[in-house]
């Protein structure tokens, strides 16, 4: 096992990884920007290294700064968390070249799967079902347009280098296609530095279901069931759960089987996620592979009892996986709600600031992964995720009741600070969600039903944000 691991991330996930390390007797090195000097992981980790100023580009995204910190601290491995450098193949490679173990898949696997077009081709060959769409890079607008006409509308245009729900556009009509194509290319270039896009059929009423896999470097791979992440706004997940409610019997087993097949075909090593879209009639299609630990990994941990971050560390340290497919059993139901500092009454605009009060939920079968504490100043430079509230219960209905109770207990107050807690309670109480009959349109429907956008109030003494 490693002696010392550098955690190349911030926020709740940095703390989550540090805790896994501590339980395994591995020393930890946190890195932080000047804006994060008060961050929880800085005081929790055995050592902390300041790697640069607030903007991520010059701190958490700076490969030289992170690698230099790891070398000086004498770390033997680097855990990238999610976001930032976690799926940057070059970072993985620079770590390896400097004698640091990168806790994640080999750089060439990340590079191949990170190109969405290449990943589609590879998974199609491995026997995974795909939505009708492009398998090769599109050479021209005309070619893309012909393809879209063949597929039939609506179609979705996505950035090949994209991810995280950004850089995509839905086209409902052939006449709109070429303008949307050019706009998505321009957006992809601005966001990801690569204008390549691909086209596939768009399923407006699909459900987002993903399979967690673990694979070691000896050719062993297992899946740990599914997570339903259909509660999203603007392609950002708000609630995740396992098992996925109301799927046709045998579907998860089949998705798990092909995900393992795909992982082996790609030479995958570590924890990864295969994302699928499930149509209303129960057909599933491969979307993409996420080459990292995901935000929502705790729901899988709660129903399987497997600590995914510790598994990542063991696999990266070169241990053969002891977990076999027949050992993986799903018990009960788990849900995760993302408590973000955002204003649901103002189109989820971020509301960073100082937390005058921060009192997380507690009680039986409740887990809170957070870097928040009373007096913490949530910086404006990073993302709005403040806490993940996870509950477990023997059944989904009881997990929903428990989640409602836990959300009610969770208190976050501060000047200008708003959170998603109230909105999450609305979703948890929604009859369609409770029945498990929802799809990815649920958040828009609830927002539509709760009133006109014009009804939002501007808080006292505030100019009001759109």
């Amino acid at each position, binding site marked *: 096992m490693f002696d010392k691991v550098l955690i190349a991330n911030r926020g709740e996930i940095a703390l989550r990884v540090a805790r896994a390390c501590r339980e395994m007797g591995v020393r930890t090195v946190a890195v932080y920007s*000047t804006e994060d000097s008060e961050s929880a992981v800085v005081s929790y980790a055995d050592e902390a290294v300041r790697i640069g100023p607030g903007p991520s580009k010059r701190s958490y995204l700076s490969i030289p700064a992170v690698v230099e910190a790891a070398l000086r601290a004498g770390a033997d491995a680097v855990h990238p968390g999610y976001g930032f450098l976690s799926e940057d193949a070059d970072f993985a490679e620079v770590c390896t070249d400097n004698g640091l173990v990168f806790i994640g898949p080999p750089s060439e696997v990340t590079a191949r799967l990170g190109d969405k077009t290449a990943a589609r081709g590879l998974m199609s060959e491995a026997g995974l079902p795909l939505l009708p769409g492009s398998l090769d890079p599109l050479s021209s607008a005309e070619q893309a347009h012909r393809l879209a006409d063949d597929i039939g509308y609506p179609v979705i245009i996505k950035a090949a280098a994209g991810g995280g729900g950004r850089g995509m556009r839905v086209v409902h009509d052939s006449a709109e296609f070429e303008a949307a194509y050019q706009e998505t290319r321009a957006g992809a270039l601005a966001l990801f530095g690569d204008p390549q896009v691909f086209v596939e059929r768009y399923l407006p009423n699909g459900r987002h279901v993903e399979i967690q896999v673990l694979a070691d470097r000896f050719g062993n791979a297992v899946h740990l069931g599914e997570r339903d992440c259909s509660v999203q706004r603007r392609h950002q997940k708000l609630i995740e759960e396992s098992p996925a409610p109301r799927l046709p019997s045998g579907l998860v087993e089949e998705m798990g089987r092909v995900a393992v097949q795909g992982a082996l075909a790609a030479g995958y090593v570590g924890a990864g996620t295969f994302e699928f879209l499930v149509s209303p009639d129960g057909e599933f299609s491969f979307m993409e592979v996420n080459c990292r630990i995901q935000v929502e990994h705790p729901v899988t941990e709660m129903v399987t009892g497997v600590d995914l971050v510790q598994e990542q560390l063991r696999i990266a340290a070169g241990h053969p996986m002891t977990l076999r497919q027949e050992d993986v059993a799903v018990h009960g139901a788990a849900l995760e709600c993302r408590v973000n500092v955002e204003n649901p009454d103002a189109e989820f605009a971020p509301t960073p600031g100082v937390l005058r009060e921060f009192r997380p939920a507690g009680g039986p079968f409740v887990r809170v992964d957070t870097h928040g504490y009373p007096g913490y100043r*949530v910086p404006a430079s990073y993302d709005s995720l403040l806490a993940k509230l996870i509950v477990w219960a023997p059944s989904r209905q009881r997990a929903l009741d428990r989640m409602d109770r836990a959300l009610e207990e969770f208190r976050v107050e501060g000047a200008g600070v708003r959170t998603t807690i109230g909105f999450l309670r609305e979703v948890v109480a929604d009859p369609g969600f409770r029945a498990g009959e929802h799809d990815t349109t649920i958040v828009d429907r609830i927002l539509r039903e709760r009133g006109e956008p014009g009804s939002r109030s501007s808080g006292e003494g*505030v100019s009001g944000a759109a």
Partner: protein
Amino acid sequence: MTQRAMNRLEREFDDESTGVPAAGSEYEKRVLLDELLERVRHHSVRFLADVSRSPRSLRVRAGDVSFDIEWSESGHDVMEAGDTASVVTERGDAVTREHDSLVSPTVGVYYEAPEPGAEPFVRAGDAVEQGQQVGIVEAMKLMIPVRAERACRIVEPLKANGESVEYGEALFTVTSVDED
């Protein structure tokens, strides 16, 4: 290291570099680096002595060497738990009572114009209508429009473009239109 990673590193160096000739041996590089650092330090100190207002951050770059200093902002540099919140609230409350300011809707970075180099949304003396956009505050990579909560006239912009702002902090002093 593969060609892909090499190319990228070279690209990043090109972005940063300003054309200082590359030195030969490791020793020469080290000497050059030390000299550069010394010169950068010297210039920084001289520059700091010349400016009247103390800056929040300073970045000086020469060749491959860059030098970053950041100072905590006065007002909330101590960061005692709870202190900042009450300071901000008091400030916000004062503003509300006097009805003479437009304030920031969130913690973030203030921008006076829709894009770099463009005309500012408003200038001193401008009359603005209720709901009219007067600025932008960037928080968590989102550009949040700041709108006038009532019709008023701008007396003075209080924040420079790109400056950090607190929740409820005054961005403009204003007078009500009927006082004109």
